[in-house]
C-alpha cells in the first residue's frame, strides 16, 4: 500500500537523495532570478526619475542646463557602475539568456534614459555595439560582460521617441521652435526605420511602431502650427511687425520663412 511505501522512504533512498540535489539547484536558480528582478525594479525607477529630470533642461539658461545634465550623467554612471554591475556579478558563470527576462525592463528603461541624455548633449546617440562594448566589468581580475540584446536597445529607442515627443511640445511651449523641427525630423527617421523592420512574430515591435506613429503625428502637428502661424503676417500689420523689436529678437524661429 502507498502509505506503507511512503513511511518506508527515508533520506537514504536513492530517489530522495537525487531530489535533494535537485532542490538545491532549483532554489539557487529561483533566488538568483528574484535578486535580479529586484535590481531591475530599482534600475527602472531611477531611470524614470532621470528622464523626468532631463526634461527640465528645457531652458535657455545654459548654466542651469549644464547642472542638470551633469547630475543626469552622474546618476546614469551610478546605475551602470552599481546596479548593472550587481546584475553582471549575479550572472557570472551562468547562462545569461536564462535570466534575461528578469532585467529586460530595467535595461530598456536605462537605454531610454541614456539615449535621451546623449541626444540632449550631442544631438545624436550611440550605436548598439558601442554601448554593448561598454557593458564590461572587472571582478577579481576576470572581465565579465553583461548580456545586452539588440532588441532591448531597439525597444529602448522606441520609448525614447515618446520622450522626444514630450520634449518637442515643451519646446514649443517655451518658444524653442527651432528644436521642434530638429526633433520631429529625428523621429521621422526613427519611424521609417521601424517601418522597415521585418520581424515576423514579434508583436512588441508592431505595438511600439504604432505608438511612435502617434507620437510623430503630435510632433508633426506642432511643426505645422509653427509654420502656419509664422507664415501669416497680416498685410495691415506688416509695418508694425517690421518695426517691432519683439520679432527681431527671435531670428532663430525665422529659418522656416
Amino acid at each position, binding site marked *: 500500500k502507498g502509505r506503507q511505501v511512503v513511511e518506508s522512504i527515508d533520506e537514504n533512498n536513492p530517489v530522495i537523495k537525487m531530489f535533494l540535489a535537485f532542490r538545491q539547484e532549483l532554489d539557487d536558480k529561483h533566488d538568483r532570478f528574484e535578486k535580479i528582478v529586484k535590481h531591475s525594479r530599482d534600475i527602472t*525607477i531611477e531611470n*524614470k*526619475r532621470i528622464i*523626468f529630470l532631463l*526634461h*527640465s533642461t*528645457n531652458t535657455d539658461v545654459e548654466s542651469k542646463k549644464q547642472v542638470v545634465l551633469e547630475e543626469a550623467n552622474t546618476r546614469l554612471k551610478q546605475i551602470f557602475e552599481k546596479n548593472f554591475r550587481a546584475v553582471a556579478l549575479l550572472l557570472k558563470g551562468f547562462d545569461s539568456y536564462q535570466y534575461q527576462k528578469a532585467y529586460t525592463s530595467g535595461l530598456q528603461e536605462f537605454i531610454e534614459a541614456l539615449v535621451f541624455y546623449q541626444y540632449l548633449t550631442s544631438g545624436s546617440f550611440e550605436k548598439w555595439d558601442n554601448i554593448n562594448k561598454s557593458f564590461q566589468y572587472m571582478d577579481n581580475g576576470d572581465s565579465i560582460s553583461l548580456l545586452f540584446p539588440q532588441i532591448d536597445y531597439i525597444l529602448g529607442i522606441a520609448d525614447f521617441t515618446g520622450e522626444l515627443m*514630450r520634449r518637442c*511640445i*515643451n519646446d*514649443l*511651449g*517655451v*518658444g524653442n521652435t527651432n528644436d521642434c523641427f530638429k526633433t520631429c525630423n529625428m523621429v521621422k527617421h526613427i519611424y521609417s526605420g521601424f517601418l522597415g523592420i521585418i520581424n515576423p512574430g514579434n508583436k512588441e515591435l508592431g505595438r511600439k511602431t504604432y505608438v511612435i506613429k502617434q507620437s510623430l503625428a503630435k510632433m508633426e502637428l*506642432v511643426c505645422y*502650427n509653427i509654420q502656419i*502661424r*509664422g507664415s*501669416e*503676417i*497680416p498685410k495691415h*500689420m506688416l509695418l*508694425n*511687425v517690421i518695426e*517691432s523689436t*519683439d*520679432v527681431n529678437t527671435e531670428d532663430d524661429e525665422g529659418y522656416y520663412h
Partner: protein
Amino acid sequence: MSSDNIIEHIFTPFQESINSEQDVREEIRNIMKDIEKSLREIVTTLQIIHRTLNGEEISAACFTARSLFNVVQKGFEKLDSVIPEGQYYRYNDHWRYATQRLCFLAALVVFLEKGFLVDKVTTAQILGLHEKSRIHLDLEDYLMGLLNLATELARFAVNSVTFGDYSRPLQISKFVAELNAGFRLLNLKNDSLRKRFDALKYDVKKIEEVVYDLTLRGLVPNSGGGEAVE
C-alpha cells in the same frame, strides 16, 4: 473551531463588517450628492468667464462661488464626522474626484480675484478640509486641481482674445509657465497624476500660440510697470 461553527465565528462577523462598511459608504454617498450639487453650481457660475470681458460680472461670479464654497464646507464637516478614525484612504474613492474638481475651482477663483496661485493650506480652508480630524486635503488632489486649472486657463486665453482682452493671455502665460516649472520638479510615478501632467504641455502650447498670434500682430499691450511679461 470545529467545522460546524465556521459560519458563526468566521462568516457572521465578516458579514457584519461588510454591512457596517456599506452603511458608512451610504452615508458618504449622500453627503457627496450635496457637495457635488454645489460643485456643479460653481462650475456653471464660473463659466461666465468664457462669455464676458466685464470685470464686475466676473467679480460677482467669484462672490457667488465663495458662498457656494461655504455650503461645500458644511458638507465636508459632515463627512469628517462620518469617516471612522484613520480610514480616510479606505473610503476616499468617494470624494477624490469631487475634491480635485473643487481644488480646481478654488484655484480658479483665487486666480480671478488675486492673480496668483493659491497654496495648499488656503485651498484646504476654502474647501473646508483644513484642520479636520479625520479628513484632510490630499496633495495629489490639490495638484490634480492645478492641472485642471491650466486647461481651463488655456480656453480662457482663447476666449479673452475673442472678447478683445489682449492682456489676459499674457497674465495666463506667465502663471501657467510657473506652474509648469513647478511640476517639472516632481518625480511622478506612472499614475493618473503623471498622465494628467503629460497633458499640461498641450495647454502650455495652446497659450503660447495665442501669445504668439498677438505678438505677431503687435497686439501685446505695452503695459508700463504692470502685470504683463517683460
